[in-house]
Each structure stands twice: as C-alpha cells, then as structure tokens.
C-alpha cells in the first residue's frame, strides 16, 4: 500500500527546519497554557484553530497536536508548585507532587513529572502508530451499516462513560445531534431548523460553536472562581543542591511509568473517558500495588510518575479511534476533526488510502513533539516555574479577546459573534449543571456522518432490519449498544432509587 521509501520521505518532511519550528511553537505554547491554571487544553486548541488557517495542512495539524501534548506536560508544573492543576487531568499529580515540593524538593518533583510525561507520551504515540494503520485497513472495508452501528455505539458509550449521570450524558448528546442536523437535508435539500437564516444553511458553523462552548464559557467560569479565591501559595525553586533527580531514582520509577502508560493508553483508546480518569486510575493502581502504600500522598515520586505518565499517554491513544475509524473520542480529537475539515482533509480510514504521506508525516511529527517536549520542559523548568504566577486578571481578558478575534478572522461577522455568545452561555450552563461536554461536542461533529450512513443503510436495505443478520459486525455493535443502554439505564435507576431511600 505504501512503500518504505515513502515512509522515510514522510519522516524526512517532519524533520525539516520549518516543521520542527512549527511543532516547537505548538509544544511551547501548549506548555505555557498547561502551566497557567485556568487555561486548559480545549480552550487553547479552540482559539488556536483560527491561527492555523495560514499554515499548510500538515503544519496546522502538527502544531495543534504539539499544543495538545504540551498542555498535558505543562499542567504538572502548576500542580506541583501551586497545588492547583493546570489541567483538570493533573489533579492526581497534586497528591504527591505538592507535598514533595513543599518538603524542599520542587525540582525533583518537576523532573519526575516531566520524564514520566515524555515517556508516557512517546510510548503511547508509538502504540498509536502501530495500531491505527491495521485498524484503518480493516475499517476501509466497512459499509454504511457498520459505520452507522459503530457511531451509535460510540455516542452511547461516551454518554455513559463521560462521567456524571447517564441521562445527562444522553441529554447532552441529544443536544449535539439536534444541532448537528441543522441545515440542508442531504437527500431532499429541504431546510431544517434554520429559521430562515441563510447562514445556517450549511449547518451551525463549527468554529463559533467550539470557541463559544469551550473557550469563552470557560472564561466565565474562571471569572467566577477568580472572585472567590484570589490567593495561592507558590513554591519557588531554591538553589538547594540535593534537590535534584538522580538516575537511580528515575530508574526506580520506571516500572510505575510503564504500567501507568499502559493504563493511560487503554483509557485513552476508549472514547469518552478522558485523561482525568486515566490519571486517577493509574494513581490508584500504583498505590495499591506498591510495597508501601502509606507513603503515597506524602510526596512519593512514584505517585507523580503514575499520574503524569497516564495523563500524557491518554492524548496520543485517544487518536486511535480518530485515525482508525474517523470517530473522535475526546474533545481535543473532535477539535482536530474540525481543523482537518478546514484544511481540506477528511480524517479517518480514508486518509490511509488517499493521503498516506500526510498520515505518516503527522505520526513522525508527533514523535518530534514528544522529544521537543522533553527539551522544552527540561531547559525551561525555571521559566515555567515563574509562569505559574501569571494572574488571572491578565489571562482572562486576553483569552476573551483571542476568542472574538478568532471569529472575526474567519469572516463570520456579526452572525458569528451572536453564535459565539449564545454558545458561551449554553456552555456555561453545561458546566454549571455538569452535563458532559465531550458527549455534546462529539455528537455534534459525528451527526452528519451518522445521519448519512443511517439513511443509506435504511434505503439500501429497503427498510428490512433483517439485513443485520448478513452484517455480523454491525449486528454485534447494535447488540452491545442495546445491552449497554439497558445496563446504564438500570444502574442509574438503581442509584437514584437508593439515593431517594437514603434521604
């Protein structure tokens, strides 16, 4: 399908000065965003997408992936020094990172976190490369029946796993589906839910929706929190000579790093679970399987290593369903789909056939990003320690400006601004009432694909449900989905009943 020469050439393309510079920029920016509490990954990607319009498709994707990876590594810094995770997923890093830093060894804590991040990220990237290609080769043979069944499965799975109540997950997903059907009907060309707005003919514009729900609404939430707690105790790096990480100590954490990477990669490959689940699962596993579980939570380097390795492993692993099936399993993967679309590439198994060189260049770019992450984190330790104290009263207005500028750059005009603010308010309430974001966003992104495949299946089969008997893969997914709905529905009913009995 693709020769060795071509693969080599794609790697060559990722190692040019230009692409390294772009990835470096992405990782660096991601690192800074990760370090600053209150600025998170999805905010950063959402506002960075408009910046990538002027890059080539490859550079844009490499930049965004670098950004995404950088945030995961950078977030450890504020978790360790501030006891405030830079990303929600680094909350587990606080547990041991902050105590270790307080006991006078901040540098050691930071270095364990960084090395664990890099190893976790690198290994998971290699796993992605190894798994995504055979996956896509199989997925290429899927027809509309299989795709419709898998998409429905993925949506229900995400609704059930993304945390909180299953019903709320379904509600968020349903909202995404409804918004995803706005625009022209693919078969008859009839207008749906456009309310006479020509701007809505091609659907709700993705960029204002993403920037509104993810970035702008997050700033509203931050604003509220900023009013509540204004002070935090920053630990500064000292010149203490024995505050460093020895090779022996690093070697001691390696088994934990490997195991946690495995857990993180597994969690990442399943759609909807996300890095927080991965980090806490790995932390819990490391604690339980340790010889001295009591030392966890008091500054055990293994605790930091477990949380950070898993946190970082989730990111590349979450791209497995994206490149393999075209289904985004996380917010950052969903945003990448949007970025790919803007740059004229349909992400998914077809990429392997139509743009193999692009796929391999992205993969090699991801490896470059891992290595740059190590360099940036290692040499920038001191600087990033200072960045933690950038006050929110600077961060919040800057981000709000970037959100609105991004919409204007794309030429959405006044309509775009209305959409952004509408979705910012919508996103704010999603957050306040704990409705799942991932489910909403993924549902919105995959709905056009789901609708097309479902309608094709129904017409092709002539409406006969028995077609599923000839399509074993689709049948399996339909059955699993049905069982999952029953299980999740039943367990949430039970939980509600017991809560009611208790009160």
């Amino acid at each position, binding site marked *: 399908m693709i020769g060795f020469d071509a693969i080599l050439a794609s790697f060559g393309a990722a190692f040019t000065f230009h692409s390294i510079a772009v990835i470096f920029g992405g990782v660096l920016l991601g690192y800074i965003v990760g370090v600053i509490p209150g600025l998170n990954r999805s905010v950063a990607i959402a506002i960075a997408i408009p910046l990538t319009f002027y890059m080539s498709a490859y550079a844009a994707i490499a930049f965004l992936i670098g950004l995404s990876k950088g945030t995961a590594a950078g977030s450890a810094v504020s978790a360790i020094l501030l006891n405030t995770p830079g990303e929600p997923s680094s909350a587990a890093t606080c547990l041991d990172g902050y105590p270790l830093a307080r006991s006078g060894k901040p540098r050691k804590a930071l270095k364990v976190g960084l090395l664990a991040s890099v190893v976790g990220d690198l290994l998971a990237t290699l796993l992605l490369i190894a798994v995504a290609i055979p996956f896509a080769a199989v997925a290429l043979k899927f027809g509309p029946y299989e795709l419709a069944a898998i998409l429905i499965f993925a949506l229900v799975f995400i609704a059930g796993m993304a945390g909180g109540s299953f019903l709320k997950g379904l509600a968020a997903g349903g909202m995404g589906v409804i918004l995803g059907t706005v625009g022209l009907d693919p078969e008859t060309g009839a207008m749906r839910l456009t309310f006479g707005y020509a701007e809505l003919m091609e659907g709700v514009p993705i960029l204002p929706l993403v920037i509104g729900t993810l970035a702008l609404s997050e700033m509203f939430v931050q604003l509220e929190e900023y009013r509540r707690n204004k002070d935090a105790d920053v630990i500064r790096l000292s010149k203490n000579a024995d505050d460093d990480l020895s090779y022996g100590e690093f070697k001691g954490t390696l088994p934990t790093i490997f195991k946690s990477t495995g857990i993180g990669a597994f969690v990442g490959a399943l759609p909807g679970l996300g890095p927080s689940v991965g980090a806490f699962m790995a932390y819990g596993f490391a604690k339980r399987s340790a010889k001295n579980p009591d030392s966890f939570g008091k500054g055990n380097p293994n605790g930091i290593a477990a949380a950070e390795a898993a946190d970082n492993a989730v990111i590349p692993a979450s791209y497995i369903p994206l490149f393999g099936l075209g289904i985004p399993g996380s917010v950052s993967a969903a945003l990448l789909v949007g970025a790919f679309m803007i740059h004229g*590439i349909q992400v998914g198994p077809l990429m392997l056939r139509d743009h193999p060189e692009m796929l391999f260049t992205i993969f090699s770019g991801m490896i470059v990003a891992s290595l740059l992450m190590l360099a940036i984190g290692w040499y920038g330790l001191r600087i990033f320690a200072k960045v933690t104290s950038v006050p929110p009263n600077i961060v919040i207005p800057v981000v709000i400006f970037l959100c609105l500028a991004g919409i204007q750059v794309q030429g959405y005009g006044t309509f775009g601004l209305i959409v952004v603010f509408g979705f910012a308010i919508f996103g704010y309430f999603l957050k306040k009432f704990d409705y799942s974001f991932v489910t909403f966003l993924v549902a919105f992104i995959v709905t056009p694909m789901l609708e097309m495949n479902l*309608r094709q299946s129904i017409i092709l089969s*002539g409406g006969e449900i028995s077609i599923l008997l000839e399509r074993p893969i689709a049948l399996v997914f339909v059955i699993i989905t049905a069982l999952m709905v029953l299980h999740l529905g039943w367990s949430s009913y039970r939980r509600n009943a017991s809560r009611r009995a208790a009160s």
Partner: protein
Amino acid sequence: MYLKRLSTAIVATAMAVGVAQADDFPSQPLTLVVGFGAGGSTDIQARVLANVLEEELGQPVNVVNQPGAGGGVALSRLAVNDDEGYTFVFGTSMTITYGPLSTETNYQLDDFRYVAGVTLGQSAMVTGEDRPFGDTWEGLIEYAKENPGTSYATQTALDRMIIEYIAQQEGLDLRIVPTSGGAGMAPLILSGDVDFAYSGGTHSGYADSGEMPVLLSLAEDRLVAFPDAPSIQEAGYDINPAEIRVVMVPQNTPDGHVERLAEALEVATQDERFIEITEERILMPVVYMDEDEVTQTLSDQVTGYRALLEELGGVPGEDDED
C-alpha cells in the same frame, strides 16, 4: 544632470501611479469559494488554481469550502454578495443550470457573470470491480431490469433527475441513496454496498487500478481516460448534461474586475501546475472558454433540462419524499 534625474523620477512616479490605477483590482486578498466538501476533485483543483491566481493577481487567494446542496449553498451566498469580484465561486455548471430548476433558490442563471470556463467535466456513471453485470452499460440495464432494488448512489439533483429519466425510459425499479461528494461515494462503490453510482471526477483517480470502471460518460463525448464507455447520447438518451467548471461572480461586478479575473484565468489555463493537477491527477481536459461562450452553453442546457422535466412531470425526489 539634476534635471534629468528629476524628470526620470517624475516619469517613473507617473508610470507607477498609472500602473497602480490600472491594476487597482485586486488591492486586497481574494476569496475563492468551493461549493463542495474538502478533498473532492473540485476542491483539489481549486487549491492549485488559487495558488496560480495568487501569483498572477499579486494578492493572496484564500480557498473556502461552503459545501451543501450540490454547490447551491455557495451560490446562494454569492448571489447576495457585493464584493465586486473579490469573492468568486469556482464550481461546476450544473449548480447554476439545474439548481434553480430543481429547488427553490434565491438565484437564477442571469444573477451571475460567468468569467470563464477552465475545464470540461468528466462526470460519469461508475461501478466497482467484479459486479454480476460486468462493467458495461447494457449489462447493467439488463441486470437492473431483472433485479428490482438495484442500488444507485446519487450526489446531485441533476444526476438524480438523469437516473430517474433513465429508470423511466428503461422501466427500472432502483433504490437511490444519497451520498456527499466523491469521498462519500467511493467507499460505497469500492466496498460493493452500492451497485452503481454517479461520479463527478473521482473515478479518474482509479483509471489505472481499474477499481472503478465507467459505465456511461455524462460528458458530450466519451471520457478521455475511459474511451470504451459510451456517452449518454450514444446510449440513446437525449440529454446533454456536459459540465463545465466555471468561475462565477455576481452580475453587478464591474467590467474591469471581470476582465482582470478572466485574464488571470486564461493565464492559469496555460500554467503547468494547473494543467498537471487537472489533466494528470483528476484527468479532465483543460479548456479555456470565454464569458460569451460559457454563457451561451449554459443557457442552452437550461432550455434542455426544462424540456426534460416537463417530460418527467416534475422534479424527481420531491413526490416520493415527505
């Protein structure tokens, strides 16, 4: 000496000003709108065209995809645009010829100026390998007569009308499924889920591998890359759905701007990169057609489609869908 230098300077300045006035357009970045999804053949071609125009016009040309309604979304936006040529649509002629006939649109043929035609379309009815009916049009028709429910994937309202017309002529009972663009059609044909399909240009990419044989040419003549398949007229259907890839601007665009764009487009049709992507990658002949020629051809086609619709008794798809 001093005077001479001064006069040279004056002349130079005057010339510079003169040039600047004549080349006033374009003085800011342009937007090339593609009415189809990213990754399709129109999109691939548009991106190269934009690069060539960028050099020719001396301003950035940004490509924006506004997919939907077979290119109709982009045109309905262009119809209300008064950018004076800074925003133009690069698309296929059927959107403007058949679009207003099949759906309610806010635009008509004479709402736009057709700056130039740059490529002749090579659309076709295609199928996959190892089908029970082989890879000939007669084979397919025979098979479909015996097998009600033979499936066809449609992408545009025009090919939907053509297939309905053919089904009526031949007495076929087809299952017609919608799909979006060549990227949506290809998997359906390659996996064997659909028996045959409309293809705007995607089949050309499979000319060498033979994975997507052409049954029927929808151009005026046989296709360059598939000389064995008959044209639609040779197969006995009185339709001329030949497509032209054209650049369109709103009717109110100043003459000077249209001329400048037309000049740049004529240069583009001689540019190696544009010829290479068009003739070697998507396998369509590059032909430059000026504004008058394109406008005449399009208006003839509209007349033809009108007559066909009368024969069919209305636009297909509307009565069996509610």
